[in-house]
């Protein structure tokens, strides 16, 4: 039995390496789909999750609705046209078409483990699933197919052979104080996005570990400036379930109703919250919907039922929970159509990957992200299985651990408190005036502070030397949070315009020449470049006055 109270902490014991064809790191929505596809293709699959595969990740606490369009060419073309129109010029209709198709054909294949509902007309409803049931079903499905699941087993670092090919990973079984090693023919990163521990529902284990591991393997990122999505929730709660807020009326501290222009809820509320408290009432929700709310979203009412206000007759305070890259669209850059990365043997799926091809510069929440998690999982799972079949398992070759910051100090070990690191990162990444309303000079100051935090932890934070597995994990997480914060801030700084969710108050216009993807990378020295054709000269971009936001 794990972690018996009162027993002394044993030293971390290295477990013998496990051999696999495919290792999936992360057991949320995309990781379970990847594991399923790889196992169905005949691969021997190991999946490791930091928490529990089935309860971890942001889909397990929500209700993922998928992008769901029947295979009618006109309907598909119209759906893609609508998304391309808002995507800020950086999405790719071919990728959209692909995920529509994979989602449509694949989602119904879990009907043996997920009890899809039927509407009054007897039509099976596939599009939206309840999160806890969906992930529980995915776990059952992969378990039946023989996937070996390692719960409470955060990955710490990737392993590479002498040519830099990724051949596995190493991590901890944190409840047992043991270190695991998996040697695999291919590794799939499915570690989700990163919300900087903002208390967004279900996001606490998504600390950007996969991003940091990828960077250590030489991989870079795209779209990290698109990391400013926020969701309203009752104050002091994690309950970022937005459906009911479609009926919301908002008030300022004086009790005056706040006019919310359609499509501009987040910025309007954020502006009001920077000035004072914002209250909300759900009195406009019709009685029949109130009555069935708990059957639609059983968790939505928990903050109210458990000591809160009656949201239909009383006003209650609300806030916005920052989502970082989770319902943003930036992430690890894709190198090919198989969800491969620039590192040989390494694939990426779900929110850990850039979602620009399918969502562009706006959020894909509500439909596209779940379809992407599923489809990228299927694509990478199959490709990873095929790769492993071609190459065979190579468990005997030498493998070098790639982990640096947060695990092995570059200089001498010294006291660095991971909690203080996390707090310093949050001070730059969570305030609305720094993320929703970005300004060049403030971004530059944030970046310089984050550089200081990074240098200190890289030089001195000794996660490997920590007394407990939990502290090792915490140290590594703090390094990952810092790394992701630096890439997001750098990207926001070097995109001197506004596009999609990225708002530069000091450059509110979109510049046609910048309708291109922005790559950022680097660990110790950050770099960035705009992709695609050379820009036209930046002639007089329109710069309206600050405050126009």
């Amino acid at each position, binding site marked *: 039995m794990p972690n018996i109270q009162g027993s002394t902490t044993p030293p971390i014991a290295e477990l013998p390496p496990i051999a696999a064809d495919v290792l999936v790191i992360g057991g949320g929505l995309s990781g379970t789909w990847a594991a399923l596809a790889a196992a169905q293709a005949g691969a021997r699959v190991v999946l490791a999750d930091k*928490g529990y595969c089935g309860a971890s990740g942001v889909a397990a606490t929500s209700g993922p609705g998928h992008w769901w369009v029947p295979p009618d060419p006109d309907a598909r073309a119209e759906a893609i046209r609508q998304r391309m129109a808002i995507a800020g010029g950086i999405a790719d209709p071919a990728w959209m078409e692909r995920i529509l198709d994979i989602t449509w054909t694949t989602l119904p294949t879990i009907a043996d483990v997920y009890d899809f509902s039927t509407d009054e007309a007897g039509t099976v409803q596939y599009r939206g699933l309840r999160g806890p049931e969906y992930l529980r079903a995915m776990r059952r499905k992969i378990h039946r197919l023989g996937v070996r699941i390692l719960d409470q087993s955060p990955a710490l670092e990737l392993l590479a052979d002498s040519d830099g090919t990724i051949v596995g990973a190493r991590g901890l079984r944190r409840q047992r104080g043991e270190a695991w090693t998996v040697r695999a023919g291919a590794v799939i990163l499915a570690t989700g996005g990163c919300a900087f521990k903002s208390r967004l529902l279900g996001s606490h284990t998504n600390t950007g570990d996969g991003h940091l591991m990828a960077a250590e393997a030489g991989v870079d990122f795209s779209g990290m400036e698109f990391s400013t999505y926020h969701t309203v929730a009752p104050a002091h709660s994690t309950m970022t379930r937005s459906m009911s807020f*479609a009926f919301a009326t908002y008030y300022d501290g004086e009790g005056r109703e706040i006019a919310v222009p359609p499509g501009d809820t987040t910025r309007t509320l954020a502006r009001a919250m920077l000035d004072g408290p914002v209250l909300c009432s759900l009195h406009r929700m019709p009685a029949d*919907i109130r009555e069935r709310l708990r059957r639609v979203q059983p968790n939505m009412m928990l903050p109210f039922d458990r000591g809160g206000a009656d949201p239909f007759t009383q006003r209650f305070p609300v806030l916005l929970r920052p989502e970082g890259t989770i319902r943003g669209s930036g992430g690890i850059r894709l190198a090919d159509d198989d969800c491969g990365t620039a590192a040989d043997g390494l694939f990426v799926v779900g929110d850990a990957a850039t979602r620009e091809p399918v969502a562009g510069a706006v959020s894909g929440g509500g439909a596209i992200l779940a379809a992407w998690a599923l489809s990228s999982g299927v694509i990478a799972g199959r490709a990873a299985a095929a790769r492993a079949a071609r190459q065979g398992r190579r468990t005997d070759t030498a493998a070098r651990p790639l982990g640096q910051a947060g695990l092995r100090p570059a200089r001498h070990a010294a006291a660095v408190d991971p909690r203080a690191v996390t707090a310093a990162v949050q001070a730059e990444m969570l305030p609305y005036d720094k993320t929703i309303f970005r300004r060049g000079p403030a971004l530059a100051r944030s970046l310089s502070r984050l550089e200081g935090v990074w240098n200190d932890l890289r030089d001195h934070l000794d996660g490997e030397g920590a007394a407990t597995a939990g502290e090792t994990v915490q140290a590594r997480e703090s390094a990952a949070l810092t790394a992701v914060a630096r890439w997001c801030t750098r990207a926001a700084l070097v995109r001197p315009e506004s596009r999609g969710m990225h708002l530069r108050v000091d450059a509110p216009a979109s510049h046609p020449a910048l309708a291109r993807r922005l790559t950022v990378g680097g660990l110790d020295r950050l770099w960035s470049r705009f992709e695609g054709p050379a820009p036209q000269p930046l002639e007089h971009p329109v710069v309206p006055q600050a405050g126009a936001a």
Partner: protein
Amino acid sequence: MISLVIADRCTGCQVCVRVCPTNVFDAVRGGPPVIARQQDCQTCFLCELYCQPDALYVDPDCETPAAVSAEEVERSGQRGRYRRDSGWDEWAGDPRYANEHWRMDQIFARARALS
């Protein structure tokens, strides 16, 4: 934040120790687990879903630990409510707790029509 392991309801199955995404509990052989890392709790309520004897209570305040007693939870009617509303385990198939999640799109459409 996780507030209570209700000892006289708990069977000591240790399921919550396994499923908690943030590893909040420590197992105790033959007894109720302890809340060892309350500050790590992500207030996701999922441990309540997986605790069939309804021996756990998660307070919705994710910032400040709540002082709440087992008696208060019992009186509030909230013990096990989330698991029941979700139609898990013995509540599966009960039409009062049917999964109507699929109605979300209709509800969003009603909201759009109203505004």
